[in-house]
């Protein structure tokens, strides 16, 4: 048998799977199998997410690092015959920089990757997540082994404390301190919980880590268990993430078979097992006390803190809850040392943070940058700027708990405290970029609709208050708002923030407050001029037929569901604004572009 000397890495994450990356990997394997000259020396590896989702599916060739984008299953033959057999790069699959038009063949030269520093994502796109051997080959489980055999629990906790790592689930609480609390809490039985509920719509880093590098989470949970004195771990994961669940299950099984999980790990007297608990589509269950309720099989309603889970959590036992991304950092910190980690980032936020870039941006995807990188660098250098040459309007960070930031905030270095200071939040790291076509009032309404749906209803300010906020915003986008409403919005928001029981209600008015602060004029325009410059509020738009272009073909008359269009054949038609429900059917139908939408 010949030796494997070339690897073809393909993306096997949820996003690329949806673009047929699985078929692509299969085709590549078939092509290799049918070519005796290379069979046995080339291996196809399905990895986790490479991050560059915009141009997926991605294929990376090793050892020469060629980076192919938007590869289709039908390209498999060409890749094998040209690249592998003849050693020629396939030009039209290489990435072209949209600005410089330069063709780039290696990822390290691409703007998207240049400023990134991947720690939590270190293995995503490099290892086969279904093969424990590949994780071990990249220093995997070394930190666990060292912990069990050479280190006292307190030494580990001190290292994490010194690294300055803060929780990536949104709260930003110092991780080492939390571990210490749980370690010092009284109790015979303790638990380690991994929060993989990832509720922020538009964020997908936790899913990508679990899909691309599940062993890093298992290792970190075991280290945490050893440090705080627990023997049982639970992963609470969204049922909407089937691929992540599969990969996690496979990884747990492999770790058990290898003696890295279960009784007497690596022959020591430390035992630890992990079970999986499933969410069922409730955002509030990401909040740690609600999550614990849900794991106990109950409705996921939050409880008042204190007591914190560290004292009284799962079945009233001391429980350490950490986010997926937080955990993914642990093994590296222990391998490379606290100083190394603390050398990155800002004064109070150390290390790196993963962001999910989405919205009107050229390079949608998953990125990881040192804390302190500016929004401008993220959006323009890494994200490649705004799609279709439009103008940047705002960036929303922190999901439903965060706010919309504008041009003037672009040079703010991103960290936990800076974002709070300018009226937003780090949250879990969702970053949604908006352009001139986005209406900020509608955006606030969108988030409030989400909160109203997801409020558990336990406390009145959140249950009723958010509903009132949503109604008021709806009134404004429907063109029925009055100035008094804007003041009401602010008042209600402040009350909801102050009086809600859990983090959901305490932060849910943020999208309203931040848009009021940063886009006050746009609110006023909606209310006083009944105008939506972005052209999104349907009630403020009118469909009109331009007389010069209309040939009177009557196609629009036939599609209009409310018979709002009248006119004689072969003569220009008109739309009766009182009858028009603004469905846009006529505009879609018109072959002469004679129907316009005006603000």
């Amino acid at each position, binding site marked *: 048998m010949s030796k494997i000397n070339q690897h073809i890495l393909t993306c096997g994450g949820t*996003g690329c799977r*949806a673009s047929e990356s699985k078929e692509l990997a299969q085709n590549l394997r078939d092509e290799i199998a049918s070519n005796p000259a290379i069979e046995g020396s080339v291996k196809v590896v399905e990895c986790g997410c490479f991050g560059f989702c915009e141009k997926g599916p991605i294929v990376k060739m090793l050892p020469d690092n060629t980076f192919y984008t938007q590869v289709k299953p039908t390209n498999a033959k060409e890749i094998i015959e040209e690249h592998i057999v003849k050693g020629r790069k396939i030009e039209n699959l290489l990435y072209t920089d949209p600005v410089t038009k330069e063709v780039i063949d290696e990822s390290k030269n691409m703007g998207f990757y240049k400023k990134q520093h991947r720690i939590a994502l270190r293995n995503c796109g490099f290892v086969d997540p279904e093969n424990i051997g590949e994780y071990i080959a990249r220093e995997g489980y070394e930190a666990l082994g060292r912990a069990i055999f050479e280190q006292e629990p307190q030494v580990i906790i001190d290292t994490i404390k010194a690294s300055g790592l803060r929780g990536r689930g949104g709260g930003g609480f110092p991780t080492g301190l939390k571990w210490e609390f749980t370690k010092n809490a009284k109790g015979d039985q303790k638990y380690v919980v991994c929060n993989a509920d990832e*509720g922020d719509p538009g964020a997908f880093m936790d899913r990508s880590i679990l899909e691309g590098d599940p062993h890093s989470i298992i290792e970190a949970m075991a280290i945490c268990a050893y440090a705080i004195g627990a023997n049982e771990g639970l992963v609470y994961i969204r049922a909407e993430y089937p691929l992540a669940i599969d990969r996690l299950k496979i990884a747990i099984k492999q770790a058990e078979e290898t003696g890295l999980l279960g009784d007497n790990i690596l022959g020591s007297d430390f035992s630890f097992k992990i079970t999986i608990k499933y969410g069922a589509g*409730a955002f509030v269950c990401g909040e740690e006390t609600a999550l614990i309720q849900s*794991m106990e*099989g*109950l*409705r996921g309603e939050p409880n008042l803190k204190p007591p914190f889970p560290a004292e009284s959590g799962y079945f009233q036992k001391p429980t350490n809850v950490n986010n997926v991304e937080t955990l993914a950092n642990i093994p590296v910190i222990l391998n490379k040392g606290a100083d190394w980690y603390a050398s990155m980032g800002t004064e109070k936020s150390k290390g790196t943070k993963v962001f999910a870039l989405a919205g009107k941006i050229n390079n949608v995807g998953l990125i990881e940058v040192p804390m302190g990188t500016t929004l401008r660098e993220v959006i323009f250098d890494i994200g490649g700027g705004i799609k279709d040459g439009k103008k940047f309007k705002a960036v929303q960070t922190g999901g439903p708990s965060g706010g919309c930031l504008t041009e003037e905030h672009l040079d703010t270095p991103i960290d936990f405290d800076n974002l709070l200071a300018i009226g937003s939040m780090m949250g879990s790291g969702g970053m949604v970029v908006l352009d001139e076509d986005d209406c900020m009032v509608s955006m606030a309404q969108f988030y409030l609709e989400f909160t109203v749906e997801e409020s*558990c209803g336990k406390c009145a300010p959140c249950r009723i208050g958010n509903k009132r906020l949503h109604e008021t915003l709806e009134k404004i986008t429907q063109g029925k708002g009055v100035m008094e409403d804007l003041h009401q919005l602010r008042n209600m928001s402040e009350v909801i923030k102050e009086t809600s029981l859990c983090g959901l209600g305490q932060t849910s008015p943020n999208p309203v407050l931040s848009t009021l602060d940063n886009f006050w004029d746009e609110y006023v325009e909606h209310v006083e001029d009944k105008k939506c410059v972005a052209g999104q509020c349907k009630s403020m738009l009118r469909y009109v037929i331009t007389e010069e272009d209309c040939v009177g073909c009557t196609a629009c008359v036939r599609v209009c569901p409310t018979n709002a269009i009248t006119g004689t054949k072969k003569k220009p038609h008109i739309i009766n604004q009182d009858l028009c429900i603004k469905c846009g059917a006529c505009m879609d139908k018109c072959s002469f572009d004679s129907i316009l939408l005006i603000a």
Partner: protein
Amino acid sequence: MAIVCEKDQLQEQHLLKIKEICNTFNKDHSELINILHGCQGYFGYLPAEVQEAIALEIDMPVSKVFGVVTFYSFFTMKPKGEFPISVCTGTACYVRGADKLVDEFQRELGIDVGQTTEDGKFSISTLRCVGACGLAPVVMVGDKTYGHVSPKMVKKILKEYKTK
């Protein structure tokens, strides 16, 4: 695929299945959500009769089971269509026009979100982020994911299934 209960009566084999699922989780009350996942996986939805049978089996008040079923949006008490359509209305998809897709599916099928067509073929629901934000806006039909969907593609997608 939804199994329909004839005249609100569960058949013997269905009861056996419920028992089996409850037993896999040792009838443990803290495993209720997993039990419900198991039953919904089998029946396609969780009608009152199934909830009653579970309650009886694990010795828990039906009201508690109902409370949990209605709390979580993943659980449904109505059968979905043979080809359930889910439009992602997460933030990334919303800003790339997901609401227009919802409108278009509703118009094409003549039903609202949460409803099923008369012939039982299609149902429409919305969900928040399937984690394929790079392909926004995203629509799922059953297990198949469609990315970069435009209102114009809606008809084409439906056509794929209408003839099935």
